[in-house]
């Protein structure tokens, strides 16, 4: 079993159209550890698929270097560029990209027919059978892709990818085309497979729940820049900036932008006309921020229902959604909608307090302020 690291050194990618040059990736610089399940997470258009294509060898970087273990697979300065097969990567596509005219057996066998030292028919058949057994798709070998369900096609795509025992396994939103129930099932199977095979895996998704459940580490991407890299716990509990804070978690983190204001001898946080009472320990750390604008982020689940005297914030719920044993309470403030998650049925008005340890602070440009670290 091969386990290689993947090192990206100041990788950049631009595309030139007739009228303009678009820089899709900007100074991407990080390392993926051997055997790691690394998730690239970001919204549509952030450059994550382009980054995956660069790692796969389907696109050439504009500048920067890419290394698998000790091997340089792409370097603009030195004029090195290895193709996908030479890099020993395999890939599962969002559309699965199964060859429609070939049987499942032929699809899975196809990578083995392109080896520099060809295998004989018997060996190929053996390897196909072993792979099909691993993925429980032996009964499907004689069929064509059009005769399979979405989940079956996905397993065939995975089979075609793992049959070569690649050094790096790439997945481009492979669960996007599946229905919700199947997605959860396949997520668990994918995680189990990666644990068993131990191949360095890079997984691209826009679904933050997939990222949190699958990845050993997550790289959050936005507008071509890496925003943060860390374990799911790190990116969720200590987002490096407002974007990461809002992108992870469902429903999204509430962000209140405002300044400190003194009224009647007391200091409040004022956000778009709404006055919030902050915990004393927080206020003591915010002394330097007296006149500067900053943001407070708090996740819906990190509010606590309290009495009026203890409340940081009092809201008038506009929409209440019951989601099993909890409630999602939506209120429309002057700054926009906010959401709280409560275990009790909300009253109107609803008094909420913010737990200091669960509050996030971001300075004017969106970067994290570590007040209680």
């Amino acid at each position, binding site marked *: 079993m091969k386990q290689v690291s993947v090192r990206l050194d100041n990788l950049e990618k631009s595309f030139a159209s007739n009228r303009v040059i678009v820089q899709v990736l900007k100074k991407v610089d990080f390392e993926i550890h051997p055997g790691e399940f690394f998730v690239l997470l970001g919204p549509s258009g952030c450059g994550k698929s382009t980054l995956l294509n660069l790692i796969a060898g*389907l696109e050439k970087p504009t500048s920067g270097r890419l290394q698998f273990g000790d091997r340089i697979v792409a370097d603009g300065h030195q004029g090195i560029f290895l*193709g*996908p*097969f030479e890099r020993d*990567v*395999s890939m599962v*596509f969002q559309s699965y*990209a*199964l060859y429609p005219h070939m049987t499942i057996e032929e699809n899975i066998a*196809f990578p083995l027919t392109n080896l520099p030292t060809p295998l004989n028919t018997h060996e190929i058949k053996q390897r196909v059978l072993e792979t099909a057994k691993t993925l429980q798709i032996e009964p499907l070998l004689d069929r064509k892709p059009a005769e399979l369900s979405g989940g079956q096609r996905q397993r065939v795509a995975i089979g075609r990818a793992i049959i070569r025992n690649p050094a790096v396994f790439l997945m481009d939103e492979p669960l996007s085309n599946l229905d919700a129930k199947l997605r959860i099932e396949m997520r668990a199977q994918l995680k189990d497979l990666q644990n068993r095979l131990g191949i360095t895996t890079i997984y691209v998704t826009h679904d933050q729940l997939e990222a949190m459940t699958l990845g050993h580490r997550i790289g959050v991407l936005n507008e071509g820049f890496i925003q943060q890299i860390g374990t799911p716990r790190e990116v969720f509990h200590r987002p490096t900036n407002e974007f990461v804070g809002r992108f992870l978690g469902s429903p999204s983190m509430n962000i209140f932008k405002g300044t400190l204001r003194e009224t009647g001898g007391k200091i409040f946080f004022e956000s778009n006309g709404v006055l919030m009472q902050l915990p004393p320990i927080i206020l003591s750390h915010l002394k330097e921020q007296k006149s500067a604008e900053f943001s407070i982020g708090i996740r819906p689940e990190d509010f606590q229902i309290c009495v009026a005297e203890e409340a940081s914030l009092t809201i008038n719920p506009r929409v209440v959604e019951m989601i099993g044993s909890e409630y999602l309470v939506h209120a429309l403030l002057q700054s926009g909608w906010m959401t709280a998650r409560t275990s009790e049925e909300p009253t109107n008005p609803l008094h909420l307090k913010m737990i200091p340890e669960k509050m996030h602070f971001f300075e004017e440009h969106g970067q994290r302020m570590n007040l209680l670290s």
Partner: protein
Amino acid sequence: MREEHVKRLLVLAGSLLLLIFALGPFGWMLIVSFADRPDFLATREFSFSLQNYVDVLTSPSLHFTDYVWNSLSVSFGASFLVNLFALPAAYAISRLRFPGRILIPIVILAVSMFPQISIVGYLFDLFSRLNLVNSKIGLIFPYIAWTIPLALWINLSYMQQIPNDLDKAGLIDGASRWKILSKIIIPTALPGVFSAFLLTFIACFNEFLFALMLSIDYTAQTLPVGIALFEGLHGEIPWGNLMAASALASVPLIVLTLIFQKYIVGGLMGGAVKG
């Protein structure tokens, strides 16, 4: 209700008119080919006869079988070679990035709009110098140039509908571009490949002007030219034989078109391949 009846009648009448207009000449051709004498309208005597067909197929002076062989070999040869060039060209234009990939198909399309008559004189001059007049090769070359735009655009429109992911998967799986084209793309685009071949074949089979100007006798003349130049014993036009030969020449094309109409219509409408 009345309005619907009138509408239906109008549609029926319109369709009948169109059919008569389109099929009328063909019907007349069949009637004359089966007539004992071509001037049956003047003599007002029609008797059914197969003699015209017998004459066409057996008379050595009419050279019908030579014309059939020339047409088939030139049309097959040209269609095969055209698609041999057009397929990789369509693949490159739809998949690869190179300077001129947008301009080239547009220029090819523009050049294809030149009227044949404007270049046939030059072609004759060039081919005489190359000793290619009155040869099958001498017809295949201009046919290739003439039908390449059609073949290129049909193949291009099919290939553009095949998802790029298939190519990427092929590259990841270690296949070369040629292997991707031959083992993955062409089998997936087979309806388009087939319809491009068929349409170029039909175009070459029916072509008249180049064949007329670039061939002299039955060694290279194709069916359309051969039939048009049919001569009777005394130099008159043998209408009965001519119509029989025309009927025989059009039957294979009609049969091919009817059997493969799905592909031809698909090819003309720009492909319906779903990857």
